[in-house]
């Protein structure tokens, strides 16, 4: 390839005075940053400040906010049993994700490994659910979860066992969260597997070979070589998993609308309900601020604790 360096003879050196060059550089910096920062300030920074402002008002969508109530919205949110339920559900999703989804993804990544014949096909298939939209995922799974055994596959299989009653997967307050978690796992395990596979690529073959020569068996290899060397990937995965769990919306909203009786409410559905169903803009803005603070506190805390180079950017 011919670069500017190779073609140095052909390009006429411009004898620009130092000042013009400096001006040129600063102008480039300015003009190149303007589009990004204009969008960023208008659609991200400004709305944050604006919703902090709105959150101090009792504003139900008519006219401008005039009814200043201080921190009352926040007090009400924290006292609301339904919001507490939403937070608990968020914590439940986090616990299940870290306890089941990530270990599953990690095991699959180790199984697919670096050299399994057919590796590329497995990777492609396992990542497919992540690429399919949440709307499609939700509707497909609602079909499987249909309580009527003549319509829903899961109950059809379940009722093959004599004496077993069909389960209202999404309609039973006790079953709905695990049922939603299964869908979340189906959708997101491929993402984490992909990250782990990329992490595995980074482990030098020689290290494993050396351990093998020293007599390590497969399990010891995983325990003492693979897992420690995947450390930073695992931390990234945990981070993404927790933030993702706190922000779930579309799947839950389409499949259950947070029901039955708020049993599957999460923070984002709670905000949507007050903001876009009831038009309580002041209250909804306060919920958004609470969610933002939760994410921010978690991120800062987590990044402080693990302090490591691959998180530099976000610190």
């Amino acid at each position, binding site marked *: 390839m011919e*670069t500017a360096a190779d073609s140095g003879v052909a390009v006429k050196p411009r004898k620009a005075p130092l000042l013009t060059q400096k001006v040129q550089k600063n102008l480039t910096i300015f003009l190149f940053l303007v589009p*990004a920062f204009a969008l960023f300030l208008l*659609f991200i920074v400004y709305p944050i400040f604006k*919703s902090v402002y709105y959150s101090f008002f009792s504003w139900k969508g008519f006219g401008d906010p005039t009814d200043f109530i201080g921190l009352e919205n926040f007090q009400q949110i924290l006292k609301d049993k339904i919001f507490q339920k939403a937070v608990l559900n968020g914590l439940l999703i986090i616990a299940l994700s870290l306890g089941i989804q990530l270990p599953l993804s990690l095991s699959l990544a180790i199984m697919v490994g670096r050299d399994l014949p057919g590796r590329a096909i497995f990777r492609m298939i396992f990542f497919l659910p992540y690429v399919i939209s949440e709307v499609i995922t939700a509707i497909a799974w609602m*079909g499987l979860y249909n309580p009527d055994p003549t319509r829903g596959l899961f109950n059809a299989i379940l009722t093959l066992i004599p004496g077993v009653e069909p389960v209202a997967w999404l309609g039973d307050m006790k079953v709905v969260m695990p049922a939603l978690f299964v869908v979340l796992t*189906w959708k997101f395990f491929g*993402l984490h597997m*992909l990250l782990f596979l990329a992490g595995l690529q980074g482990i030098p073959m020689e290290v494993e070979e050396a351990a093998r020569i020293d007599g390590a068996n497969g399990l010891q290899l995983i325990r003492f070589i693979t897992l420690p060397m995947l450390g930073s990937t695992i931390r990234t995965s945990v981070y993404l998993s927790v933030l993702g769990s706190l922000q779930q919306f579309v799947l839950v909203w389409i499949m259950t609308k947070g029901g039955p009786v708020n049993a599957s409410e999460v923070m984002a559905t709670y905000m949507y309900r007050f903001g876009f169903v009831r038009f309580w803009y002041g209250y909804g803005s306060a919920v958004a601020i609470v969610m933002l603070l939760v994410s921010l506190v978690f991120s800062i805390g987590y990044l402080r604790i693990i302090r490591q180079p*691959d998180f530099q950017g976000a610190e």
Partner: protein
Amino acid sequence: MTSLMIQPRRNWKKNIPRLIQYAVLTLIVIVVFVPIVMLVFSALKTRGEAMTNPYTLPIPPRWDNYINILSAPNFWMMLRNSLLVMAATTTGVVLVCSLAAFVFARMRFRSKDLLFNILTLGLMFPINIGILPVYLLIRDLHLPDTFLGVILVQTAFALSGNIMILRGFFLSIPMELEDASYIDGCTPFDFFWRILLPIAKPALAAVAALTMIVSWNDLLVPLVLINKETLWTLPLGTMQFQGQYGMDVSLVNAFVSLSALPTIIFYIFAERQIVAGMTAGAVKG
């Protein structure tokens, strides 16, 4: 000689874990495909067949549901709307992010780190949290029920992550190349446009592929910003179609599987770019 005779038996023993590995992985493959396959099975049956034998193979396949949907204007309109939004958002993201990423990767100036850190804080404010504040802003700007509103919001919320991805790629391009080009009289813009971007094509492709998927699948932004039926995108239309024709499961499933088809085809062709973007994004983010 002896070693040759022992070889096959050893291989057979060695293959047991392999077999278990394949058995487990195949099981997961089945789990991945069950929801998708059930959709298509049901879509290929008449309403009556879907009621009486919902779980059997669709033999003979009934294409009526698909024909119904493809011969009505709705599906095509939504497809067009989704394509339009996706194309505009992707162009915007690639353009705006590569400009900013270039400055953060290759230029030196005061308060660069501060500006970059502010930008990365945007990751803490994803659209699922920001949707209400953003909706109120769009209302003030008189942009509800326009594609422009959807495109601007999708672009803005894709900035932080993609600037970080591109900056990472741009940083990996050797400094000597840049010095040489300046010595030859290139302006920073020349270097960016004629040297950096051509080299960074794979990175730009990764960012573009990722943005396309995100925009194409996005429900929340159109759901909140778009009312007019003629402006519905595919995910929004799919959700509404399910609400409206929920009783006719086969027809809904035909619609849903059709709306999944473009994503699946795109994924098969752009898997490498999507995976590259995803991996880079997660590690940097």
